């Protein structure tokens, strides 16, 4: 089956981003196709490459980066949600007169239309939420 995975959980404030990682690995292992991973709301923090974890702890953005690269998955970070939260690439920071970047290499910034399009083309959409 074709899946769209929606990550809305802050990777520190909530467990949801880690649950989504495990779910995605299990779906791939079962032979399913991941159409797109879409990071929205606080989930965009899951795509911040500047997140640093002590050696004995899991670094969620590094794990997403690895999983996405290894399986060449399509990963989109909601641009409106991300730029407001400081998850940005050089193009965006320059546009706002700042410098620097924080987005993981394996994901791209784009609009909510990318979530709608993937959802419509998928058999299943599974959302991993955080705390509200």
């Amino acid at each position: 089956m074709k899946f769209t995975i929606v990550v809305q959980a802050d990777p520190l404030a909530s467990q949801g981003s880690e649950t989504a990682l495990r779910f995605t690995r299990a779906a791939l292992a079962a032979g399913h196709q991941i159409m797109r991973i879409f990071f929205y709301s606080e989930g965009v923090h899951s795509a911040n490459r500047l997140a640093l974890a002590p050696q004995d702890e899991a670094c969620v953005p590094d794990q997403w980066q690895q999983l996405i690269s290894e399986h060449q998955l399509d990963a989109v970070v909601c641009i409106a949600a991300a730029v407001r939260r400081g998850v940005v690439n050089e193009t965006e920071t320059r546009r706002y007169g700042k410098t620097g970047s924080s987005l993981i290499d394996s994901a791209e910034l784009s609009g909510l239309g990318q979530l709608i399009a993937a959802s419509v083309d998928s058999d299943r959409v599974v959302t991993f939420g955080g705390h509200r």
Partner: protein
Amino acid sequence: MSDRTLHTLNRGPQSLSLFGSMRDAISPRDSLLLIEDGVYWATAAYAEMLAGLNCDKIYQLAADADARGIQSDRIEPVDDAGFVSLTVSHQRTLSWF
């Protein structure tokens, strides 16, 4: 295949209104999967509230129950592969958080 929704719930008993909205939304053919802090609903103190849900089956994510020291013989555990299977066997998933 009959039309069924898989509901997931990731918050514990202090999120009572979340549980209430989920209870309103769940249908007799639907299933519920307790994940993350949601597994605390599987403890004995909340057995009556779970029994009051007008749904088909209730599951809990095993890794989350183990992490929290929750032992519940009444609620069927599933692993990550089982979670994926449940999303396949239900037409849609609704995540409560």
